[in-house]
C-alpha cells in the first residue's frame, strides 16, 4: 500500500474510533447535568443515584474521547502536511479556537466536577457539569465548522502564485450553512447514542427487576429521548441532504448511485445487483423520494453521477471525480436504516412500558440491550458517508486527497503508527467496555451516610 492509502486508513480508523466516544460524551454530559439539576430541585435521592451512576459511565467514555482527540489534532500535521500548508490559514483558526474556548472549558470543569463533590457549594458544583457539557457541544461546533469548510469552502481566497488559501472572513467560516446543519445533526444524533446507553443499561436492570426505582424511570426517559432525537435527527439530516444537493451534487448522486440525471427520481431502500449500483437485478424503490429529499419537490431534478462527472471534468480538468459508489450507497442506506430502526424500536418500547407497565417478555430486554449498537453504527456510517462521499477531494473543489498527503513521511512510518494506534485503540476499547459493563452490573447503590464520617463518600475520586 502507498503512503496515501495507509494514511487514509489511519485517518479513517482513528476518526471513526474517536467518534464512538464523542457523541456519548456530548449527549450523556447534558443528560447527567439534567439529572443532577433534578436532584438539586427535588432533593429526591433517586436522582442523585442516577447522576452518580451515569456520571461514571460518562467519565470512562470522556477519558477515552479526550485521549483519542489529541491524536486528531496532531495527525493533520503528521500525515497530511501538504493539506495543512494549503488550508492552515483557514482551517487552523477554528481548531485553535476549539482548544482555547472549548477544550479548556470542558477539561477544567470536568476536573472540578469530579473532585468538587463536598468541596464546592451544591449550586456551584452543579454549574461545573453544565459548563463541561457546554464545552463538549462547543467543541463539536468548532470542529464541525472546520470539517464543513472542507465540504463547502467559504470565506477564503486562493493566493495567486502559491498553493495556499487565505482566510477572508472568519464569520463566513463560523456561520457556514453546512456547519450549522452538520452541528445540529450531530448534536441531536448524540442524544440517540446517549439514549441507547440509557435504554440498554436500564433494560438490563429492569429485566432483572433490580433497582426499579432508579432504572424504570431511566428506561422511559431513554426511550423518550431516543424517539424525539430520532425524529430530530431525521429532520436535520433532511435539511443537510438539500444543502448537499446544491453544494456537493456528486455526493447526493453517489448516495443513491443515480447515474443519469432524472426528474422524479426514486429512492432505493435495498438493491441486489452490481456493487456500484450500475446494474440492477432487483430492488425495493420508493417513487419520487430522492427528488423529494434533494429538492423538496417530488418531480424535482436530481443530477446523475455521469452528468456531474462531465461537468466537473469541464470545470476541474480531466480525471475521475466519482467517490467509491458502493461505499457511499451502502453507508447512506445503513445510516438511515440503523437510525430509523432505533427510533422505531423506541416508539414500540414506549408503548410497551406505558402506564407503569413492566414487560414480561425476555425479548423486550434482549432487543433493548442489542439495540445499543444501532445509533453507534448509524453515526459511524454517517461519517463514512460524508467523508467518503467528498472524495476525491479533501477540500471540495480545491485540493484532492492525493495532493494532501505528507511528502516526507515514509510508508514504513505510517505502517508503524497505523499498527500502534489500531492496537492501542483496540486495547482501550476492550478495557473501557469491560469497566463499563462491570460498573453497569454493580448497579446504582443506595445513598447511605457513612457512619462516623462528616461528609458522604466522595464519588469519583481517583
Amino acid at each position, binding site marked *: 500500500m502507498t503512503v496515501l492509502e495507509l494514511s487514509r486508513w489511519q485517518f479513517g480508523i482513528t476518526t471513526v474510533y474517536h467518534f464512538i466516544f464523542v457523541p456519548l460524551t456530548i449527549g450523556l454530559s447534558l443528560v447527567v447535568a439534567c439529572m443532577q439539576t433534578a436532584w438539586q430541585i427535588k432533593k429526591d435521592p433517586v436522582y442523585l443515584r442516577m447522576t452518580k451512576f451515569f456520571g461514571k459511565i460518562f467519565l470512562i467514555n470522556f477519558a477515552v474521547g479526550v485521549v483519542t482527540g489529541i491524536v486528531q489534532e496532531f495527525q493533520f500535521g503528521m500525515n497530511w502536511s501538504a493539506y495543512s500548508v494549503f488550508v*492552515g490559514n483557514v482551517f487552523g483558526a477554528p481548531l485553535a479556537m476549539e482548544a482555547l474556548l472549548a477544550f479548556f472549558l470542558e477539561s477544567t470543569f470536568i476536573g472540578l466536577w469530579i473532585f468538587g463533590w463536598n468541596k464546592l457549594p451544591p449550586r456551584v458544583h452543579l454549574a461545573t457539569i453544565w459548563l463541561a457539557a457546554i464545552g463538549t457541544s462547543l467543541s463539536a461546533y468548532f470542529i464541525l465548522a472546520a470539517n464543513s469548510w472542507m465540504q463547502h469552502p467559504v470565506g477564503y481566497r486562493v493566493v495567486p502564485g502559491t498553493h495556499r488559501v487565505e482566510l477572508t472572513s472568519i464569520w463566513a467560516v463560523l456561520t457556514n450553512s453546512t456547519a450549522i446543519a452538520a452541528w445540529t445533526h450531530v448534536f441531536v444524533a448524540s442524544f440517540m447514542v446517549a439514549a441507547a446507553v440509557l435504554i440498554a443499561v436500564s433494560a438490563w436492570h429492569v429485566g432483572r427487576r433490580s433497582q426499579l426505582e432508579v432504572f424504570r424511570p431511566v428506561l422511559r426517559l431513554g426511550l423518550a429521548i431516543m424517539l424525539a432525537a430520532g425524529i430530530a435527527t431525521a429532520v436535520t439530516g433532511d435539511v443537510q441532504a438539500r444543502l448537499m444537493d446544491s453544494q456537493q451534487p456528486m455526493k447526493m448522486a453517489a448516495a443513491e448511485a443515480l447515474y443519469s440525471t432524472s426528474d422524479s427520481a426514486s429512492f432505493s431502500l435495498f438493491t441486489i445487483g452490481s456493487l456500484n449500483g450500475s446494474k440492477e437485478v432487483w430492488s425495493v424503490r420508493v417513487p419520487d423520494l430522492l427528488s423529494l429529499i434533494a429538492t423538496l419537490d417530488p418531480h424535482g431534478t436530481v443530477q446523475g453521477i455521469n452528468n456531474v462527472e462531465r461537468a466537473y471534468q469541464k470545470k476541474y480538468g480531466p480525471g475521475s471525480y466519482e467517490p467509491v459508489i458502493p461505499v457511499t450507497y451502502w453507508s447512506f442506506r445503513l445510516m438511515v436504516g440503523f437510525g430509523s430502526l432505533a427510533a422505531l424500536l423506541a416508539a414500540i418500547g414506549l408503548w410497551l412500558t406505558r402506564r407503569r407497565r413492566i414487560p414480561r417478555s425476555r425479548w423486550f430486554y434482549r432487543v433493548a440491550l442489542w439495540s445499543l449498537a444501532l445509533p453507534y453504527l448509524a453515526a459511524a456510517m454517517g461519517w463514512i458517508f460524508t467523508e467518503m462521499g467528498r472524495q476525491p477531494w479533501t477540500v471540495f473543489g480545491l485540493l484532492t486527497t492525493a495532493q494532501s498527503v505528507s511528502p*516526507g513521511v515514509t510508508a514504513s512510518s505510517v505502517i508503524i503508527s497505523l499498527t500502534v494506534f489500531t492496537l492501542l485503540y483496540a486495547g482501550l476499547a476492550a478495557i473501557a467496555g469491560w469497566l463499563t459493563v462491570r460498573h453497569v452490573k454493580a448497579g446504582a447503590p443506595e445513598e447511605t451516610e457513612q457512619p462516623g464520617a462528616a461528609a458522604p463518600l466522595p464519588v469519583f475520586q481517583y
Partner: protein
Amino acid sequence: MSLATFWFILIAILWAGYFVLEGFDFGVGILLPFLGRDDTERRVMINTIGPVWDGNEVWLLTAGGATFAAFPLWYASLFSGFYLALLLILAALIVRGVCFEFRSKVDSPRWRANWDWAIFAGSALPALLWGVAFANIVRGVPLNAAHVYTGSLLTLLNWYGLLGGLVTLSLFTLHGAIFLAVRTSGELRPRAHRAAVRCALAAVPLAAVFLAVTQYSHGKPATDVTAALAAVTLIGAAYAAFRGWEGWAFAGTAVTLVLAVATLFGDLWPNVLPSSTNPAYSLTVDNASSAHYTLVVMSWVAIIFTPVVLGYQGWTYWVFRKRLTRSDIVVPPATGTETVEPVGGRS
C-alpha cells in the same frame, strides 16, 4: 513588532505554560511508583494532580492549534518531520490519560500496580521526548528546499537532543517532587522533600551543561541573560528545596522552566525550524506564518479569551489548595481489604 512575531511569542508562552503545568504532573507520575509506599499514598499523589492534569494538557493542544493557525508551514514540517517521535509522545499521553480514570475503577492491588507503572511510563516518555524535540528544533534539522524533513527518528537522537531530553526529564521530576512537597502532608511530605533534593543533584548540572552548550552554539546576548537567570533560579530552587522552603522552591522551578523556554525560543528567533541542510531552506517567522487577517482574528480571540481561561484555571488551583494526606482518601467501606504493600521501596 510584527503580528507574526507576536504569535511566535504567544506560542512560546503556551509552551512555557505547558511545561510549568504539565511538567509537575509528569513529575508526580514519574515519582508515583517510587514515592508512594502503598495504594493509599499513591492515591494521595494522584489526587494532588487529579483535578488539574487534564486542563494542564490542554496547553499542549492549544499550542498545537495555535501553531496550525498562525504558522501552518511550521506545523506541517515539524509534525510530519518528527513523525515517529510524536507518535511515541501521543501513545504515551493516550495511555497516561486513561490510566487515572481506569486505575480508580477496580479495587485490586495488581490492577492498580499495573496502572501505576503505565502512569510512570506515560509520564517519563513525554518528559524525555519534549526535551529531545526542542533541543533538535533549536539545533536545526535536515530540511530540503520545500521545507520537508529528510532525516529519520535516529537523526533526532543525537547527543545534544538526548542531553535536552535528560534536562526536561530531570527538571520535570524535580518540579513534581517539589509540587508533592507543597501539596501533601504527613509521611509523604518529607519523602517528597528528600526526592526533590536528589532530583536537584541531577537536574542542576544537566541543565547547566545544556544551557552552556546551547548558548555557546546558538546564543544571543539577550538569551545569555535569560539562560544565566534560568541557571540562577534553578540553583535557588535547589537551595530552597534543600532548606525546605517549599513554596519558594516551586516558584523557582516554575520560573526556571519559563526562562528556559524563553532562552530556547529566543535562540530560535527569527527561525521557527532551522534547516541544517542549508540555512536558506529554514522556516522563519515570516515565511511560515499565516496571512495578516488570520493573525488579526486569532489575536482578538486570544486577547479576549486567554484571561478568562487563566481565571477559571487559576480558580481550580485555589479550590484544591489544601494539602492532601492519607485521611483524605476514603477507602470504600464494602471492601476494606486494602493490601498494604511492604515498606522499603526506593524513595
